[in-house]
């Protein structure tokens, strides 16, 4: 099938691009220009969503590629369908679409804010000890709120007891 041909190669191409970026990074590190090479930094930025893309393409490969089977060669998709009405499936698909739109929308908004703000110099961090500098949740920079002055709130996990 044509789509499978392309999505599979797309996935593999992204994988090799990641490897290439890694090798390039090692080379620049060895040369000592890792943090100053603008071309590399731009490439790294552009590669940010590549993992997401590779995962999606991989799923397309698996899900389209195995049709018309759910268990390849054993069980056909048409025979595996649950007795769920079209209406119910439409509701669930629409609901997930809207929910993901909201969650990704807000996620991108907060992420963009986080990026625009840039990293804070370590000296302005309130709180004591190195633990205050550790980010503990996926979207968190260490010890700071996003809107308002830095360090007004502690996000993420509290410190361990004692």
């Amino acid at each position, binding site marked *: 099938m044509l789509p499978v041909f392309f999505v599979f190669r797309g996935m593999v191409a992204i994988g090799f691009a990641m490897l290439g970026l890694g090798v390039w990074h090692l080379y620049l590190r060895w040369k000592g220009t890792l943090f100053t090479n603008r071309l590399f930094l731009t490439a790294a930025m552009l590669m940010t969503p590549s993992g997401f893309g590779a995962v999606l393409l991989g799923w397309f490969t698996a899900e389209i590629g195995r049709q018309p089977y759910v268990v390849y060669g054993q069980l056909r998709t048409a025979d595996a369908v*649950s*007795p*769920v*009405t079209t*209406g*119910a499936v439409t*509701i*669930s698909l629409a*609901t*997930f679409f809207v*929910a993901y739109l909201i*969650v990704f929308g*807000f*996620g991108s908004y*907060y992420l963009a*804010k*986080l990026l625009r703000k840039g990293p804070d110099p370590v000296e302005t961090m*309130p*709180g*004591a000890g190195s633990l*205050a500098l550790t980010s503990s*949740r*996926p*979207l*968190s920079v260490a010890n700071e*709120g*996003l*809107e*308002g002055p830095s*360090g*007004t*709130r*502690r*996000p*993420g*996990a*509290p*410190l*361990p*007891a*004692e």
Partner: protein
Amino acid sequence: MFGFGTEYVGWAFWLPLLWAAILGVAITMYVVVDGFDLGIGIIFTAAYNDNWRDRMMFSVAPIWDGNETWLILGGAGLFCVFSMAYAILMPALYIPILIMLIALIFRGVAFEFRFKADASRRIWDYAFHYGSLLATFAQGIVLGAFVQGFKVQGNQFAGGTWDWLTPFSIATGLGLVCGYGLLGATWCVMKTTGELEIWSRQKAFQFLIATVVLMGIVSAWVPLLGVQIDRRWFAWPNIVVLAPVPLLTAFVAYRIYRTLEDGYAAAPFLLSIGLFLRGFLGLAISLFPYLVPPSVTIWQAANTVESQLFALVGYAFALPITFAYTAYAYWVFRGKVAEQIAAGGYG
């Protein structure tokens, strides 16, 4: 009670029993541990100020996602070992499970986004509250649907999309909301200090009364449903053996009230867990050996002995590890949450 499944011998008899026990443990663990963090969400917006809400959220922030592991362990076990029951239950409960998942998504991201937002913070307060509330209500509806039973023909669900929606399942949904609210409030009693703790004691008391009332309503309702459960409870000599169960419930509820009044920190929460375990035991006694009441038993729904053994190897590792890291996480984050969050989390 042991006339069941005797046409199965050896492994084919014992493995489904063992797996039913494993799933029972996973579901019980889920109800207890995710119950209190969903309960935090249920009482969340009733709190007087943002500082209280911060502290309530911090008290569960390090552990809430680990708590949901048990839901996955239970669901995966059902899928691997009792595929037939899974295939019947999922279409039958399609809408309530959809509601639960969407609600859990919103309440889950609320943990991440709430601390990133200032202007939009209210949104996540309410996402956390309504997400928790809806997820709990949907779980309670699933519980009610189980007691009502499912229409099965051949090996397939033969009922309608909305079969689960009845006055009875709405009552069990409300019951679970009150029950989780009780767990959440008593958790706050244990984990917080000062005025928030006093407020939590009042909330716990209110939810305790609501829980007991709804447990009573649901229990009185079951014999009127025309399902087979009441026969097990009221038949001789079972009634003698089972009579202490409701009495035990009343006693535990009274103890929760006393320990809340007398200023105990951990006892109300632990007793509330006891109340849930009691409810779960009652349900297990009622439904056993049916996995899809009133027609499919655990033996009929079980996959081949080979499949059950295969999955058992995986669970033999996964269950102890999950228990261990859960216990460790609770140990690390033991004690009360600090009153001034900005000054540094746990004291």
